[in-house]
């Protein structure tokens, strides 16, 4: 009866939380209202001009001209060559995973056809899920490549300077070809709304028990901290899923966001993210002395999440230290996962690099929360 975990006690907490949730109309309205309000507010996105975007080169033609173009790309500041790949499959996997933003494909016989004045094509493929991250770089590329080649046309090739442009550039923005920012914002909102409401609401959950004196009663019963915590988390995980549903429906029907990935996969991995946020909220509630402090702490967590996760500004446009902070936040990884699944059709293999950091975060948050949860009133 006093074993480590008891299902009846756990269930008792869950039932109680649901009844209380139903009684608290304001909070209940907030849970549903926030996704809708944010959706409207963030319909417009903030643009910026990110540089040094990771780029891979798929060169079937090794020539002086290829090298010229590649170094000109780097000099422009928009591109940073991080990889050389051998096959198209390798290139597209890296793009899907989010490891790189661009692939420049230089076709075989590029230099031969260039010299002949046949206007060979270069293919620049972009991961355009976040249009603000890529649009400037895409625009710049054509001019950069042409200007660089013109400098190489010396001596016998000088005639190529005149006449039509020496090469054609094919731009291929994948995933979001029309560069609609809402496509990027709406899936991102899912993570933002979950972070905001879940951290605040659970932050309040235990603080409220302490503030109202009900914790004293709870502690005098055989109930275990783990049972209280889990019993409080589960109802709000459900709330998290309702919020996701609202956003997905609105995204689908209001903003016509394409959802090409596996929605079940998204729902499954969201569980980890939701739980991670609840863990944060519970930890805050064990630290806060009253409900006001709990809300303040929640905002303290929420602001860096929204600013440094790549939701507001393209992640790669941020300075290095900000990216490092961003990498520790669960929202950063969740944004990549949601965009990956919805817009790129990612499978488990591609999202794995972003899944485990959330898991690590969850374990840390829950551990701190459980150790901090005061078993006695000391």
């Amino acid at each position, binding site marked *: 009866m006093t074993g480590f975990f008891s299902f009846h*006690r756990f269930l008792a907490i869950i039932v109680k939380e649901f009844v209380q949730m139903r009684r608290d109309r304001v909070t209940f309205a907030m849970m549903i209202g926030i996704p809708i309000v944010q959706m409207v507010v963030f319909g417009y996105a903030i643009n910026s001009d990110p540089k040094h975007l990771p780029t891979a080169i798929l060169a079937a033609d090794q020539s002086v001209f290829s090298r010229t173009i590649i170094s000109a790309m780097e000099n422009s500041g928009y591109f940073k060559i991080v990889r050389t790949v051998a096959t198209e499959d390798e290139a597209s996997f890296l793009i899907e995973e989010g490891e790189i933003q661009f692939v420049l494909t230089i076709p075989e016989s590029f230099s031969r056809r260039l010299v002949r004045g046949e206007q060979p094509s270069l293919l620049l493929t972009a991961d355009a899920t976040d249009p603000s991250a890529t649009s400037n770089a895409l625009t710049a590329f054509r001019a950069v490549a042409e200007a660089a080649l013109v400098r190489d046309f010396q001596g016998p090739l000088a005639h190529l300077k005149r006449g039509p442009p020496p090469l054609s550039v094919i731009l291929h923005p994948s995933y979001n070809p029309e560069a609609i920012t809402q496509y990027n914002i709406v899936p991102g909102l899912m993570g933002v709304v979950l972070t905001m409401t879940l951290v605040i609401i659970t932050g309040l959950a235990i603080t409220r028990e302490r503030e109202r004196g009900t914790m004293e009663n709870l502690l005098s019963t055989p109930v275990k901290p783990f049972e209280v915590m889990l019993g409080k988390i589960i109802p709000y995980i459900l709330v998290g899923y309702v919020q996701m549903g609202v956003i997905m429906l609105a995204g689908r029907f209001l903003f016509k966001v394409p959802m090409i990935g596996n929605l079940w996969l998204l729902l499954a991995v969201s569980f980890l993210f939701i739980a991670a946020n609840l863990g944060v909220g519970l930890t805050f509630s064990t630290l806060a002395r009253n409900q006001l402090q709990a809300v303040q702490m929640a905002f303290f967590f929420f602001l860096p999440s929204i600013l440094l996760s790549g939701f507001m500004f393209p992640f790669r446009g941020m300075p290095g230290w900000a990216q490092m902070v961003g990498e520790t936040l669960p929202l950063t990884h969740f944004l990549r996962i949601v965009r990956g699944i919805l817009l790129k059709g990612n499978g488990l293999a591609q999202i794995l690099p972003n899944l485990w950091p959330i898991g690590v975060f969850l374990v840390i948050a829950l551990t701190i929360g459980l150790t901090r949860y005061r078993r006695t009133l000391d």
Partner: protein
Amino acid sequence: MTEVAPVIDVRDLTKTFGTNIAVNRLSIQVQPGEIYGFLGPNGSGKTTFIRMLCGLLRPDSGSGSCLGYDLFRESEQIKVQTGYLAQRFSLYEDLSVRENLQFMARIYGLPKIRVLVDETMERLGLTRFAGQLAGNLSGGWKQRLALAACLLHKPRLLLLDEPTAGVDPKARRDFWDEIYLLAAEGVTSLISTHYMDEAERCHRLAYLAYGNLLAAGTATEVVAASGLHTWTVTGENVHLLSATLKKTTGVEQVAPFGNILHVSGHDPEALGAALDNLDRGKYRYEQSEVSLEDVFISLMQNNRRDH
């Protein structure tokens, strides 16, 4: 008569918060079926002591058992058989009476919850409030609900921390009737209170001040042990005497009870001498029984002087 193991048996229990000694080497024993009263001024350590008994606080030192279980190692077993009523209403105000009781019954893992909750509500007269939110109940009914909640799991020991504070006399009377019924069923109760009439209803009591146990025993024993003598003084405008008497040697305390003045002191001769100086035409005085209140006020004053 065979010796029955005491329900509460603690020795030298101590708890400090920072530099403040809340409970100082407290030792008491409470026998089965007893109603044990806990008295003392605010901040005397009553609540701290009760919280230590039910596992809410960990004692710093000392030893003890509750219901035969060790206070330090077996607090889980103690919790299962103890009902704790906190000073402040600590059930959920946004749950109804029935929902609160159902919640507590589930927490204790009790069988046949529906029947049990109905029976408990019936027993304590809560049935007509079943669907009402606890937050909307009056003080007396809240207290009754709280009592119902800690009776659900049929505890052998009740720890009641000022259960009747702010409750009207009728509700207090009903509450005590319930405690007596439970005592008759063998349930032991430890009750902290500020009310003297309630103290007199207890089988035995303990008086605490600043964490120290100053007196313990039955009401008669406590009075006898105090060595206090009391005279009552009556007469026209007797309260005008109060200030003069307080300054007289031999008089340690003067307390008005309506039109009567209770004058007490430890030295009967000095006290008698002090009163002999009164104007006999105006005032009448006689030695009377020492009341618990006289004893407690005296204990409180003397203890304060020591500090």
